[in-house]
């Protein structure tokens, strides 16, 4: 079993300010989602509602078809791992892993295996861990929770590149072994792009985009070829990025219709996919959205 998520007309206010407004969102069960947004866009607020860390000011939050708030059979199978984890700093790493057994689905053997793999010092207190090791501990608790819905909110911050890579691979292996719903909230977009099935972009408290990665990336394209031909093809189009090396130019456009695709092919210009990060920057550009 893996959990669906449904948010219906959800609003969250901090005082008078809207952190989230009129959010309608459905996440299907058993997929890996990327949650993207600029700082302060509302990503963490959204995840906090789904994990019942907070109660919405208005609207309904359903997980597995049921209201999530104070629903023990549901929240015990939902894991939200925040940056640095939610630990008692006076506890040892071993204590933290043992406390995972409050969840019916927690796998202590898997936790021990991951602790060994990521070289977590079991006897050290949490407050003695480096930022990277603390992040690893948080990631391990999330993976070993074996939850039906697991959400990682910037959990990889502080991890070095090899550790992040190992974490992504472990996450994918765990997902393949036991399909469940995963949400990755991150600013390292291109690093996780290959793992994602769908992307949700939150901007200023609203869901701006929710699409499969391929569909989103299909919105635009990167045209590479002779500079004059690329310039001719992209004249009048919105450019997300451009690079030039000698007589060769690469231009990323936000939209690519069939006619342009045909003309590019005829002109010998290569058409490549657009980077998710470039699209994200373009879509959340305040100038574009009238901010």
């Amino acid at each position, binding site marked *: 079993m893996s959990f669906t998520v449904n948010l219906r007309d959800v609003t969250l206010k901090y005082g008078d300010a809207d952190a989230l407004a009129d959010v309608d969102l459905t996440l299907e069960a058993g997929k890996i989602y990327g949650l993207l947004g600029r700082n302060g866009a509302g990503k963490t607020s959204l995840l*906090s509602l789904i994990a019942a860390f907070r109660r919405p000011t208005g609207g309904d939050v359903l997980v597995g078809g049921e209201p999530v708030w*104070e629903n023990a059979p549901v929240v015990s199978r939902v894991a939200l791992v925040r940056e640095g984890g939610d630990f008692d700093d006076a506890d040892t790493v071993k204590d933290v892993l043992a406390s995972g057994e409050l969840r*019916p689905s927690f796998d202590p053997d898997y936790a021990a295996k991951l602790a060994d793999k990521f070289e977590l010092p079991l006897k050290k207190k949490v407050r003695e861990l480096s930022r990277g090791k603390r992040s690893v501990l948080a990631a391990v608790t999330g993976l070993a929770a074996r939850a039906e819905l697991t959400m990682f909110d910037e959990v990889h911050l502080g991890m070095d590149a090899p550790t992040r890579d190992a974490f992504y691979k472990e996450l994918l292996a765990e997902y393949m072994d036991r399909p469940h719903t995963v949400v990755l909230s991150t600013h390292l977009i291109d690093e996780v792009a290959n793992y994602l099935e769908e992307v949700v972009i939150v901007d200023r408290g609203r869901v701006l985009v929710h699409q499969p990665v391929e569909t989103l990336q299909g919105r635009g394209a990167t045209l590479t070829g002779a500079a004059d031909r690329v310039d001719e093809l992209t004249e009048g189009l919105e450019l997300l990025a451009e690079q030039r090396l000698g007589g060769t130019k690469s231009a990323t456009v936000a939209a690519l219709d069939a006619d342009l695709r045909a003309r590019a092919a005829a002109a010998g210009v290569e058409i490549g996919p657009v980077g998710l990060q470039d699209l994200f920057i373009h879509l959340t550009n305040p100038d574009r959205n009238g901010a």
Partner: protein
Amino acid sequence: MSDLSLAARRYRLGLGMFTEGVKYFAGWIVAAVVLAFLVPFIIGQWADVSQSGWYHAANVGKICTAIVGGGFLYTMMPTMIAQGVTRRELATATGLFGLLWSAALGLVAIAGFLVEHAYYGLLDWTQGIDQDTPLPLESYGHAFEFAAHYPLVFALYFTGGALVSAAIYRSDSGWLVLIPVIPIGLALDDLLSSSEPWGPGWMVRFVTGLADDVDPWIGAVLTAAFIVLGAWITRRLILDSAIRAKQA
């Protein structure tokens, strides 16, 4: 099977909080016992001992209990919710923890007074409560009668600590709840006890006079009512609390 274990989770959690609390403070409790018995022994080498050392240790235990009630709840609120525990479960677990902690520490306090009575008797000292009007505990019965309220008074302090902690977690201005909780708690403690208020002079002056000439049984009933009301308010605060955002 998993649903069965989920149903019992709040009680396992409360029991776990109690055992972890005892383990965490075991060293402090042992130190208090040793000091309460050792210091009078040292003083006894030069002067007559007429004060109960255990009385001071037991009273320090009240403050310690308030800190335990508040500290555990404040620390465990985000960690337990992050482990998929509901606020209702956490509230029930905290209540069970408070009952077990107060009962256990209360029994230690009572046992301490009785053992101290035997200890002082062996050394021919007077077990007395040092205050403006000294209160000698002249028999085991008298010592027990004096100490019998400690389980209830520990529950009072635990509830006060948990209530303040829940209010502060709920809201930045939650510390304002200290304004009614401290004087009410101290006054009830004074009502329960047959001794004069214990603590710093300014605090003693603050509550002295509030509780004169009141039957201790009335004090017990009022304290029980405060504990029930305080526990209910604490539960409401827990149920209504959002988990705080993490600081960068």
